[in-house]
Each structure stands twice: as C-alpha cells, then as structure tokens.
C-alpha cells in the first residue's frame, strides 16, 4: 500500500503499565453514554436557593410572622409529600418549592394552622392525586392558595402593614384551629390593588418596586423577584419567554385601557408592579410541569395569562386576578402543546398533516 503502509509501526513504550488480563468490571448501558450535567434535582434545589432572598425580604418587611407562615406552609407540604408519596420524593425538592411559594402568597397575620392546611391541600390535591411529580395539571401552590381563599376569605385578605419591628407578630399567628382568631391587634392596610379597586386610591411606583406596601409576603418587592428570576433564567432553569410574554401583554393591554380612560384605569406601570403579578409571572407561571413544552407555546401561555390578569383586574369582582389567570391557563397547557407541535423535519406544514 502507498501512504498508509508507510506509516511507521508504533511500538509500545517499555514503561507502560501492564494490561490486566482479567476482565475489568465494565458497565453496560444504552447510548447515549454521556449526559448533560443538569438534573431535575439540581434544577429544583436551585429554584429553592433562588427563593431564599425573597423569603429574607418578606421577613424584613413583615417580621417573624412571615417566617412562621412560610414555615407552616412548608411543613404542611413536606408532611403530605412524605406521607402520601413514595419514599424519598422529598429529596427532589419539588414539595419544598410548593410550600415556599404557597407561603409567599399568604398574608403575614394568618393563624398558622391555615397555611399548614394550605400546604396539605397543595400537595395532596394539587399534586399527589394526579400521580405525583410531573403529572399535575395545576400549579400546586396556587391550588393551595385557591383553597385557602375559598375557605378563609377574611383571613387571607387581612393584610398587615409592613415594617414595625422584626419580632412583632402581625396577627394572631398562634390561634387554634377552627377557633376564630382574636381581634387582630395590629395595624392592617389594604393592598395597593385593593385600594384602587375599592377606594379608587393609587399608590406610588417606588414603594411597589421596593416592596414596603401591604400585601402577601412575597408579592411585594418586584425588583427582588426580577433579580432572582433573572438568575434562574440565566441558568436556563426558567423559560424567560413566559414572564416576558405575561408582562408585555399586561403592559400593552393595560396601557391601551389607560390611554382610553386614564381616570378609570390605572397606568400600566402600576399594573405591572403591583399585586402578585411579578411573583406569579416569574415563579408560578414558569413551573415547568404546568407550562407548555414548546417555545411558541410559552409565548401563547404567557399572553393568555397577561390578558386574563388585565380582564379580572379591570372588570372582575376581585382586586387581584393573577392566581386565577395562571390556573385557567394551566388547564389550557395540553391544548397549547398540541397546537404548537413543531413541524417535523422533512414534512409539510402541520395543516396538511391533520
């Protein structure tokens, strides 16, 4: 042979390690034999870590009560997951996320047994009955909150004011189950959206951004939520299309309303930074299990949530609509996935495939 034959025969160097004649223990797996480093567990625990600054901020604003409420919701979620689920599912961190998120959408003054019960419902009825992790249709934390809203409409809308000392309780946190809480001995305040809806009073933008307004624990500091969510989006543990789509739709639609009748409808910046929109858009709607798998689907999903939020806030009976907007769009996800099924390589468009 020509060139190939002219290649010198390589000799094994004398110092080389001897080859072990006995067969080494080899693994046998199907291809691919390598995997990306990201794992579901890592994703979940990173989300948990990214929530920590928001939890800390809620404690700064609402004192020790915030921590108690969040802890109660987390305890309810974890206990239910451990009791009902298969062994070891606590390790995946998803129940912890549900508990944290539920705690963050409750007011600080709630009697603790309520958040605990909410955590039980969130995991039990939001996740376990569907078949556990990955099977649920609705965001479990929001299922828990929807339950609490229906069961305890007063307690869940009693918003203590932010700021008045770290260790001052913001309500009767230790009320016994099913006993009516003692008359709250704290100053309460309406949320900015409540003020607007029922008293036609606006709130300045700056307090909304920083977070020292009335409201649930985590729905106050829009800036911090954006920061933490931005970290997750940068790690690609969160689909940025969903919050961007939600916020853009909300901004455009509420801006249109505001231009039509600026006296009746709030300005778009207020709409964007008030209430639970930030936490909902960044942390609730982006729950991978209950959001679409396609990129186009993410845009549609977000637009639907944004439109529903504006609809409920502008014309609904409630001051806030993020929770229902997300839950309604959760139900649409299987259809959105189907509608946005990508065109398979080498096939004509979806229309002709039918």
């Amino acid at each position: 042979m020509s060139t190939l034959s002219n290649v010198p025969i390589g000799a094994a160097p004398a110092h080389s390690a001897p080859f072990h004649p006995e067969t080494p223990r080899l693994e046998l797996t199907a291809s691919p034999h390598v995997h990306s480093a990201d794992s579901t567990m890592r994703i979940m625990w990173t989300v948990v870590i990214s929530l920590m600054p928001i939890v800390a901020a809620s404690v700064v604003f609402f004192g020790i009560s915030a921590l108690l409420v969040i802890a109660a919701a987390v305890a309810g979620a974890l206990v239910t997951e451990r009791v009902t689920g298969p062994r070891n599912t606590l390790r995946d961190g998803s129940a912890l996320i549900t508990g944290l998120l539920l705690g963050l959408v409750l007011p600080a003054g709630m009697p603790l047994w309520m958040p605990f019960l909410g955590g039980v419902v969130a995991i039990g009825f939001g996740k376990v009955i569907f078949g556990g992790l990955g099977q649920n249709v609705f965001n479990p934390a929001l299922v828990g909150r929807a339950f609490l809203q229906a069961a305890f409409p007063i307690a869940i809308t009693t918003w203590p004011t932010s700021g008045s000392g770290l260790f001052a309780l913001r309500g009767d946190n230790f009320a016994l189950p099913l006993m009516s809480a003692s008359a709250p001995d704290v100053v309460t305040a309406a949320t900015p959206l409540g003020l607007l809806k029922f008293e036609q009073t606006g709130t300045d933008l700056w307090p909304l951004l920083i977070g020292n307004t009335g409201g649930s624990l985590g729905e106050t500091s829009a800036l911090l939520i954006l920061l933490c969510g931005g970290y997750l989006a940068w790690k690609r543990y969160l689909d940025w299309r969903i919050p961007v789509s939600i916020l853009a739709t909300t901004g455009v639609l509420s801006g249109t309303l505001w231009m039509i009748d600026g006296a009746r409808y709030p300005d778009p910046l207020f709409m964007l930074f008030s209430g639970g929109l930030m936490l909902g858009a960044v942390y609730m709607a982006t729950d991978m299990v209950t959001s679409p798998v396609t990129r186009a689907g993410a845009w549609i999903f977000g637009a639907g949530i944004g439109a529903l939020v504006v609809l409920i806030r502008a014309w609904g009976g409630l001051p806030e609509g993020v929770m229902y907007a997300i839950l309604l769009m959760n139900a649409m996800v299987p259809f959105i996935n189907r509608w946005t099924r990508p065109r398979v390589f080498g096939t004509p468009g979806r229309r002709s495939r039918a």
Partner: protein
Amino acid sequence: MSSNGFRHGVHPPERKELTASLPVRRMPFPKEVVLPLRQHAGKPAVPIVARGDRVERGDKVAASDGYMSVPMHASAAGIVTGIDWCPHPDGSMVEAVHIAVERHSAQLPRPRMVPEWESLVGEEVARAVQEAGVVGLGGAAFPAHVKLAPPKDTKIETLILNGAECEPYLTSDHRVMVEYPERVHFGARIMMKALGVEHAVIGVESNKPDAVEALRATIPADLDITVRSLTVKYPQGAEKMLIHAVTGREVPSGKLPVHVGAIVQNVGTIAAIAEVFETGLPLIERIVTVTGRGVVRPSNLIVPVGTRLRDVLDFCGGLNADAAEIVFGGPMMGAVQADLDTPLTKGTTGVVVLTHEETASRETLPCIKCGRCVESCPVFLMPQHLGALAQLGRYEEMQQWNLADCMLCGSCSYVCPSGIPLSQMFALSKAALRRQKPKVA
C-alpha cells in the same frame, strides 16, 4: 438559502483534544484476526475458505451475497483456523473467519491489478468498489457501492463529503482530512465522475480548522470542490442535518437524500475508495480512534479489520483504574461492549473508554415537562410525548407522532434532566412495531 448549521441539537463536551493532534500510527499485527461475516448493512458475506487454508493479506475469504452485500478479505496473512462464532460489536454472536496470523510474515499482499478508474463507467466503478469490500466507515457500514449507482431516474446535483465528525471524542475522520487530504480529493474525483456530478462540498465542523485548511490547500485546480466550515453542534454529521446545512434543503420524511439531489459519503470512506484505485487493495484496515480518559495512551491507529478489542487496548497501554465503559463508535450513538474478545469491524470508528465520572448512572425521575428534549430534537419531534406513549406501550400512536423520523441520535436522552432513557425507549418501540407489522399485513 443555506446556513452552516441546523436548528436545535445539543452541545456535549467535545473531548477531542485527547487525540486530535496525534498522527495516525500503525498497530502491529495481532496473533489472530477474526473477520465477522456480517460487518455491513445488508446480507452477510459467504465464506469461501475452509479450515487449514493459507491466505495472504488481502485475499478474499468470503464473497458477497447479492447486491446489498460486500465480500470480506483477509486483513493479515496466516492460516484459517475455522469458521466459528465470535462476539459481534452489536452484542450478538456472529459467524466469523478466524485467521491465525503468520508470525514472521512480511504481510505483503499479492501483486494485483490496480483498476484504471479513468476508463471505467459509473457501474464498473461501483463494481470495483463492491469487490474491494468498501463500506461506509462513518459507523453505519452501508455498502459504499450502492451510493455509486443511484437509481436511473434521479438527478444528482451535489456530492457531499461528510467530515463533520460531530460525535465527541472521535478524531479518525479528522486525521484522514489532515494527513491524507489529497486522497480525499482523489476519491471525490472518482465519485464525481462515476455519478456525473460537477460540484462537491466537504462539510467540516469548525472545530477542525487544520482539516479545513489542509483540504482547501490541496483542492485540485480542475475540480469544483468547496470546503464548508460548519457550526459545531451534535448531530451535525447526521445525513439529513448535513444536507440541510450545505444545501438548505430538507430531505422529505421517509425519503432518501437522492430526492433532493444529494449523495453523502463519509470522508474516511471516500479515502478508502481512493485507495482501491491507488493500490488495488481491498478494505482490510481502517483508522480507529482509541480514546477516552479510561485508556492509558489515547491514539489514532491503523488497525487491521478483525483485530480483537483486547489487542487494541493492550497496544494502547491498557485501561486506567477508573475505566467504566467501553464503547465502539462515539459516546452519543456508539454501542457498548461487553466482551474484550469482540473484533473491531469495518464500521468501528473508534474505541472510547469512558470513566465512572462520565457514565455515573443517575436515577430516573418523572418527566417534569421542562421541554429540553423538544428544544434538542434535530428533526423537531416531541420526545417527552413520545416517551409517555412508549411507557404506555402505545406504539401505533407513536407513529402518528412521527416515530419513524427519529434517527436515534440520543440528543433528547442527553439533555433530559430526569435521566429518562428516551432514545432507548424509541429504539425499543421501533423494534416492537417491526415485530407487529407481519401480523397487521
């Protein structure tokens, strides 16, 4: 319109630095070569030697059985010790010609006629290539002569040479392009004449600038060959992806590349075809990348076809203590090896020894619908949905979700954070459907 890449795909660590700059060396002949009769896609070859026969290097030991088959040649001089079973790289057992290699032979092949390619028409070129036992060296081992004789009613516009080598670790095609660029061009010349095409494109991933440079520097003045530097992305070397990157056209689902006027041939194969017309020698050896952090001395080697895995590893210094898994081919689509007595065949592009750190099996968690598989699939399937259907055994329904278009590239399994073995499930689903078909028909 054409870009230099395709949509979706994944970016596994390349790990080519282990062997990318190592010149190809020739490995000494082993004590025995084992030539499986089934080393190519199609019908197995039929042995024409018997126990006790003496063969020279390059002698035919098995004949092709029909058109979709190629003959087999002795890769070393010696005595045929039998037609016996041996482990096949795909995990099955296969009949093979066993040859005890002569210890002090010069291993010189018999003098032979070198085919005069310029005087041959297309079909004669194809016949010479078949007779030399040349198959696709990129891994699939598809008989090379079939691509030299496309159906009469098709018009071939572009010959595409696949130098993408998108699998991590592998550098055998890379070394061919760097060390034997003239041979690649000579092979292209033969194929272009046989096919009657004017234009050829060599597609190379841009992580091999030295290969691009070597190829560009040696393009013959009278040949219309373009060297294209392509996006580094897995699976850039998949036939459909490469055609899309080079021509901008999509091969229709269920159709062959000729339907968009393209023929794709691996650069290693084209060099092997060139060799047939340079020396007259059949395909009896190939360049193999022996690599991975589990092997003591990673190398690019010329290995006689039929050399046992044990001998190859032995020559490369053996295994490191943390060696975990031995794969023929790349780590994305390669086949795992259970037996060190398995011979390397014509389709063995590389021997990759992975370490425990890389293969660390992780438990499978439920699908969290993160959508990463959807974003990775190069043919735009919805692997998460197909996976759910596969777990339920709803294979017919999977066909409606285009299971047939899945090429088992493994991208979805690679990215899945829950460690769901999607591509393995799809391979099994395809097999289940094949078993069902006769009953339906």
